[in-house]
């Protein structure tokens, strides 16, 4: 029976979108009204998301999953596209509710953070609208009960990402990402915000296209986009969409195509190159979109379709290629991005690489889950999502801290910070906690989540051992770059830049900033006039530090709760969810039996952390000298610094040829071949015409001659016909 509580899952995503629109109207009444509307919309959405936990018989999730659509919405019979039999609906199940809560609450915290961070910027109406619109679309994506609606949210967040990366669309040099002058293979690697936004949009678009093709292939057989219908069809008959697709050899391709969407959105190899440059946006945006929420959409997508495929085929061989692809790409991306994070000097870029890397872990977890379908699907599945949750929290925290750091130091480079632990205590401790979580040091959340992924990879066995090993190495690197980052920022001597700020409390923030090449692009996030080094090194305003200290606290809390009950409860929850769809799977985490992978990864993380400690906290080991002195290490450094040259290769392979090719085609074909037809065709007529004109001599005798010829012609015609 329909009741008005069914409206809530809809409101979860409608409220922020509506709030965004409302904030545009409220902007007429003033900036404060606009901000309040925007933030409150986000808060309401978060509260609604939480209320989903209490909606009906949801916890513990039993066989009566609540699947809602408009049909049951307060008795309303409205459908979305009636003629095509498509309905708009929401799915309230453990996966969506958990994710919706993470998204909604992190979003709310970042909205609060934005109040302080974006204060004094111009065009804030656009900012708040887009942020709210993003939140709404993200929740729409998470809560959709069908592919098409999901795709709406999917592209919606993509657009917000594009628009917010390019928020400072005037493209002043200070907003650029990358160090001016950087180039590899003659491809410049510093990008303006609008360029970065465009790059993000087009690159994710490539993935989205694969995604769209994938769902349309499924649609071609199932005639539905609805997840529930897809499951029901699987159970309804042995001749279903999955077997039909499989019979024409398109099952695995379609699955991998859908995964292509995840690759794009979650910045996995080979479509990972957009995310580091997305850091051109405001840091609050990076925290929200490019760390905590949108980039996880791909993981969510794999988590949504993965069980579908497992439910489709009990035999491993059918789905094995898909899950192996997911796991392999995840593990490789984790390694790839981690190596790049080791060498970057830009704080936000380190975090961006780290995000890519961590999402790689999640993909690894979800991938290995399917490699041993029946035994421990739930294990990897839970591990992946647990890591998603913990990463969302600690990475959002890291970004928010970074936002303040960049703001207060007036530089985006870590080398221009240093020794800040005394000046910014709250920021320091918050960042330390979330950083340790990233480095997977117990007892913080990151440790438990990542290690269960590794444990799952270990359990899967077979090919997954390689991936397991890759994951282990990555965890060493992760710990290293985390400590490098923390050390560079908070320990060691203060950089020149900071000393200048410390001594110069008034006047323009940094008189030399406009001239010195390293600092011209440094002032990302310093749009606000009353901050940014003007007043020296000081702690963040409350609206900013409260959100990130909350996140640090939550990281600790989860870290403590995880081994005791949280992880197992999460596993049980997902287990019942999977069981509902007919996947028999029991959550099987056992810390004792998985002692080996856990201790291995901890050991490696500690090694990495120790190197980082030596190099950047204790500073007894001068790594930069070491690297520069050794040509092998130095070329490795260059290789990592230039993103394995992948970025420049992409530009050389795709962007430049298309740009040049289009001009070539235009000049050589369109203007040389097609256009002349316009001129040639009439001149052909003209040529014929002038021949005919020449006959017209104006001499009577010739006219009479022609007359005679005409008679002759007629006689010939008649004679010819007569003979026949």
């Amino acid at each position, binding site marked *: 029976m329909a009741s008005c509580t069914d409206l809530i899952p809809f409101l979860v995503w409608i409220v922020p979108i509506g709030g965004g629109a409302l904030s545009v109207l409220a902007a007429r009444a003033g900036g404060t009204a606009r901000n309040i509307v925007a933030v409150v919309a986000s808060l309401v959405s978060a509260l609604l998301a939480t209320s989903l936990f209490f909606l009906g018989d949801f916890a513990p999730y039993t066989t009566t999953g609540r699947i809602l659509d408009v049909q049951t919405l307060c008795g309303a019979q409205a459908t979305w596209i009636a003629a095509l039999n498509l309905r708009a609906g929401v799915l309230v199940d453990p996966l969506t509710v958990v994710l919706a809560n993470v998204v909604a609450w992190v979003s709310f915290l970042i909205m609060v953070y934005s109040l302080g961070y974006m204060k004094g910027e111009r065009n804030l109406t656009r900012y708040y609208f887009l942020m709210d619109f993003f939140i709404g679309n993200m929740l729409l994506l998470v809560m959709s009960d069908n592919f098409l609606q999901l795709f709406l949210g999917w592209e919606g967040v993509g657009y917000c990402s594009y628009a917010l990366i390019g928020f400072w669309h005037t493209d002043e040099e200070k907003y650029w990402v990358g160090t001016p002058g950087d180039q590899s293979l003659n491809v410049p690697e510093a990008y303006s915000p609008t360029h970065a936004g465009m790059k993000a949009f087009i690159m994710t678009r490539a993935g989205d296209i694969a995604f769209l093709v994938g769902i349309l292939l499924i649609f071609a057989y199932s005639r539905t986009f609805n997840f529930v219908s897809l499951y029901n069809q699987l159970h309804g008959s042995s001749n279903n969409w999955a077997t039909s697709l499989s019979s024409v050899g398109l099952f695995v391709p379609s699955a991998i195509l859908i995964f292509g969407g995840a690759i794009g959105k979650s910045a996995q190899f080979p479509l990972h190159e957009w995310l580091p440059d997305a850091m051109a946006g405001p840091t609050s945006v990076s925290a929200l979109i490019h760390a905590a929420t949108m980039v996880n959409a791909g993981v969510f997508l794999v988590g949504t379709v993965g069980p579908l495929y497992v439910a489709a085929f009990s035999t491993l061989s059918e789905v094995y290629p898909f899950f192996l692809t997911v796991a392999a790409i995840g593990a490789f991306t984790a390694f790839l991005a981690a190596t790049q994070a080791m060498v970057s000097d830009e704080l936000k870029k380190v975090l961006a690489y780290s995000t890519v890397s961590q999402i790689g872990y999640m993909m690894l977890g979800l991938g290995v889950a399917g490699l041993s379908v029946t035994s421990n699907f739930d294990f990897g599945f839970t591990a992946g999502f647990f890591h998603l949750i913990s990463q969302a929290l600690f990475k959002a925290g890291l970004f928010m801290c970074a936002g303040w750091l960049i703001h207060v130091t007036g530089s985006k480079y870590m080398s221009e910070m240093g020794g800040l632990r005394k000046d910014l205590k709250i920021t320091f401790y918050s960042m330390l906690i979330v950083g340790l979580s990233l480095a997977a040091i117990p007892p913080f959340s990151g440790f438990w989540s990542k290690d269960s992924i590794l444990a799952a990879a270990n359990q899967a066995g077979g090919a997954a051992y390689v991936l397991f090993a890759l994951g282990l190495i990555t965890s060493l690197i992760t710990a290293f770059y985390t400590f490098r980052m923390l050390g560079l920022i908070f320990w060691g001597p203060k950089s020149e830049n900071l000393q200048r700020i410390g001594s110069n409390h008034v006047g323009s923030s940094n008189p030399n900033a406009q001239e010195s090449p390293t600092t011209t692009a440094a002032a990302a996030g310093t749009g606000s006039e009353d901050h940014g080094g003007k007043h020296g090194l000081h702690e963040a305003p409350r609206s900013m530090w409260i959100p990130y200290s909350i996140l640090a606290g939550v990281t600790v809390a989860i870290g403590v709760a995880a081994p005791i009950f949280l992880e197992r409860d999460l596993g049980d929850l997902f287990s019942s969810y999977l069981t509902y769809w007919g996947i028999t799977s029991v959550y099987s985490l056992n810390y004792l039996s998985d002692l080996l992978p856990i201790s291995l990864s901890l050991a490696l993380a500690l090694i990495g952390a120790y190197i980082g400690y030596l190099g950047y906290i204790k500073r007894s080991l001068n790594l930069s000298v070491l690297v520069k002195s050794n040509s092998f290490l130095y070329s490795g450094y260059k290789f990592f610094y230039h993103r394995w040259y992948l970025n420049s290769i992409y530009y050389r392979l795709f962007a430049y040829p298309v740009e040049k090719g289009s001009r070539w085609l235009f000049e050589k074909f369109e203007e040389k071949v097609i256009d002349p037809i316009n001129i040639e065709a009439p001149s052909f007529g003209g040529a014929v*015409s002038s021949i005919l004109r020449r006959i017209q001599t104006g001499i009577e005798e010739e006219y*009479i001659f022609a007359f005679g010829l005409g008679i002759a012609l007629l006689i010939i015609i008649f004679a010819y*016909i*007569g003979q026949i």
Partner: protein
Amino acid sequence: MAFPAFFSGFEAVPLLVTMIMAVAAFVIILLSSLGLRARTVSTGISVAAFVISLALLLGKVLGYLGPILGPQGNSVFAQDWISYLFGVAILIVSILVALSSEDFLANIPNASSFFALLIFTTIGSVLLVFSTDLLMIFVAWELMSIPSYVLTGFKKKDQESNEAAVKYFLISAFASAVLLYGISLIYVITGTTNIYQILSPASSSASGITPIAVLALSFVIAGFGIKLSAVPFHMWIPDAYQGAPTVVSALLSAGTKGATFAPAARIFFVLFAGSAFQTDWSTAFAVLALLSMTVGNFAALTQRSVTRILAYSSIGHGGYILIGFAAGTAYGLTASFFHILNYATMQTCAFLAAALIIREVGKDDLLAFDGVGRRMRIAPIALTLSLLALGGFPPLNGFWSKVFLFYSAIGSPLNLGWLAIAGIINSFVSIAFYLRIVKHMYVDQPQSFSKLFESNGFRVALIIASLIIVGTGVYPGPVIQFASTTATSFFSQISSASHVLPAIP
């Protein structure tokens, strides 16, 4: 014969019409010799005569003056639908020409004799379309031609006008001779000069076609070809049209040319349906149609003189009309008749509008037409409309008849699809030069912005013509019905004489 009985049932409409016009012509000459040379009076009288004549013909067509019966026995004249259809077309042209001549002759002496000659030409044309006897056809033909020579050379002091008249006369004389020879050959073969008598079964005993018949056919076609402006008998046309006073060109290209199609239809569809001539003359027509269209339209492409462009357009349209003849079906004739009716207004309108503009700007060069659209009001619009109609654009009358013509070719049992394709290509080519004139008038910048004078006579003529063009285009039904009735009744005459069309499977 009692006078009332003579007119009973208005069977004597053609006689009445010619008498009215003849009287009008003599009145004009009389008044002129009495010293009353005012152009307005002459115009008034001639227009009145034409309008009354047109009213009589239309009264007959619409059934107010009794039904149209068809050819009766041995008479030299036939009152069938064809004669009325062509009569209407000729009179419309004559009215338009007369209306605009009032102003056109402003600086030319002897205006009244111009009108008399115009009326005589019209009388000749009307007689021609009513004639059913070969000799009568020849007489009417000459009656029509001789005044038109004079009209062509009417500008006595103008070198070009004189030259045009001479050319026209020479070629026409030659054509008359050839036509007469052809007619005599027909008489040799059939023993009669009456077209409908030749239909009788007695004369159709011979089988196959003799060389004499071939000669007869060829000579008749060639003779008519001069007036029909069929290529390669068209050579005189551009020169004559360019040299003649432009209103006379309108008369020549629409009036006398249109009229010639009537005897052509009679001779070919009736006379040559006789088995003595049983041959596929359609193919000859198809070839002539193709040549005329192609030469006319392509040659016009690079002309710089507007009158020459219109002259070539006239040649091209002669080709279009011949498509319907070549199709050899009632449908084809419907299309041809329809197109003749439309062509009469389109071409007259185009020539008259061009006449006015040329007179005002002083030259018939395209460049002189630059920006005329901003300097005059009615004439450029009328010219644009008529050119678009000639090009076959909706919603103008030329569109419909062209569609019908091409359709009839495709639907013809003779597999004339190629002719339709050629026609369509030509139609495409033709818009190039039609629109070139339009472009010069509207797009190009004029040398001066001063307004040019438009007289009322021209205005009335052009407005009437434009209204007919648009009206027929928007609601073509009645005109198509007229053409269709004409064609079908014509065909039923043939079939009533138990003849089928020659060589049509």
